[in-house]
């Protein structure tokens, strides 16, 4: 259920790489419990936006308020406190390839929840893996997993820390249609179960339709259009229509 409180408030966000201006004064508010899908051509700044939100990329100008704290002004300790409330699913899942699936999930847990016993952590790992249907792969190495399985493990690893905000960077890219749908359904299921607020960067319109409460379309570093999936699908704007054809 979407609430009226803004959990993320972005104002005048600018980011350039050399002479290439990617974000040109972006404004975006995300309400608590809302699932926002971000569409846009490659290089339009979608991934840069979510990387700015977790401070993987430093913004040049503007403010990013997450849980009412401007993360551009926080020191490392304060930033890490905010980061613990956010989960991030990377495009290629970014599993630690020298660790088993179990270790991949246990690693962030062990280091950020030092009060938990080994038994409690093990229970949480198994529970997170069973949520994504991969409890049997617990002792496998990432290299033994398919693309879809890697995404599921990546999702389980992000969700094990019980984040309030989930950021998905092209969660279905590189997957076949069936697996893409499975991942999209899994994202929706996890959103409903964990009551997370989400930003989903995608080119996959089926994923956008299934997971998004609101769709935002990027064009040349600013928001060109926003609305529900159905509203934008009926849009007369040629640029917006091009995503739905």
């Amino acid at each position, binding site marked *: 259920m979407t609430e009226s409180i803004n959990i993320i408030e972005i104002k005048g966000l600018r980011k350039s790489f050399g002479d290439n201006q990617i974000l040109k004064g972006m404004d975006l508010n995300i309400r608590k419990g809302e699932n926002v899908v971000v569409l846009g051509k490659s290089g339009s700044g979608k991934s840069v936006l979510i*990387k700015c939100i*977790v401070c*993987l990329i430093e913004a040049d100008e503007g403010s990013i308020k997450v849980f009412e704290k401007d993360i551009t002004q926080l020191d490392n300790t304060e930033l*890490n*406190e905010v*980061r*613990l409330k*956010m*989960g*991030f699913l*990377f*495009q*290629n899942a*970014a*599993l*630690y*390839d020298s660790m088993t699936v179990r270790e991949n999930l246990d*690693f*962030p847990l062990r*280091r*950020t929840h030092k009060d938990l016993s080994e038994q409690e952590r093990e229970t949480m790992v198994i529970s997170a893996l069973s949520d994504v249907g991969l409890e049997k792969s617990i002792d496998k190495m990432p290299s033994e997993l398919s693309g879809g399985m890697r995404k599921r493990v990546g999702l389980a690893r992000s969700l094990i*820390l019980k984040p309030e905000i989930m950021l998905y960077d092209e969660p279905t890219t590189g997957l076949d249609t069936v697996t893409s749908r499975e991942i999209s359904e899994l994202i929706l299921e996890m959103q409903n179960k964990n009551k997370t607020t989400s930003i989903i960067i995608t080119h996959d319109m089926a994923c956008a339709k299934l997971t998004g409460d609101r769709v935002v379309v990027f064009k040349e570093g600013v928001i060109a259009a926003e609305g529900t999936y159905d509203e934008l699908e009926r849009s007369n704007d040629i640029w917006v229509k091009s995503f739905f054809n």
Partner: protein
Amino acid sequence: MEIKDLPAVKNNVISEHIREAFSEMGRTSLFGIRFFKEAFSPPYEFKELLLQCYNIGFKSLFLVSVTGFIMGVVLTLQSRPTLAEFGAESWLPGMVALSLIKEIAPVITALICAGKIASGIGAELGSMKVTEQIDAMEVSAINPFKYLVVTRVMATTLMIPLLVVFAGAIGMLGSYAGFNIHNHISVFRFFSKAFESVGFDDLIPAIIKTFFFGFAIGIIGCYKGYTASQGTESVGKAANSAVVTASLTIFIIDMLAVQIIDLL
């Protein structure tokens, strides 16, 4: 372009290369400063440090042993004819011991480790960087620099001196084997003669410089990997550049160490 313009273009290219080399040195130094800041502030990664010591130290033992033994044999066999010509064959154990301890074991072992360890670290961290594993740590509120860089640099700094001492010892065994091809001498007598020539003033500076070798290997390997730009090509470049830069740095440190020891 006119032919007369070519020298100007060449000068620009050279000055650009020199500028880039100094910038890179500056960035590596800042990376080193960050290492010291992170290394002495909690939390400490003891478990990962032990794992890295095992990976870097124990897993290099075989390579270092073989190299050390060959160094001892070759040095003995090549030096023997010259010394025999002057009737100074009995000086051979002492000369080999001094050469191995002061120069050959530290430098050759460090170069072997630059090839094996710096490239390994460069490729591993480079690969983690391009596959966003380092970013994944950061967004999970884990300090990747502390976990990946500090542990590896500390491990190389601690393990390279041990590997050098080990290589020196194996080198002396190789020297004994080489000496016994043409002469017959007991182990006790050989090592007594060898260590008669070696004092603490030879041993201590040689060991101290190996800590710097280890630090250089670790920090350069980590820097090249940690700052690899996106793309798989950069992983190979990071590994290659780590070996070349670490090897060159070892020679520079060695030259400086010799000058400093000479002054003392």
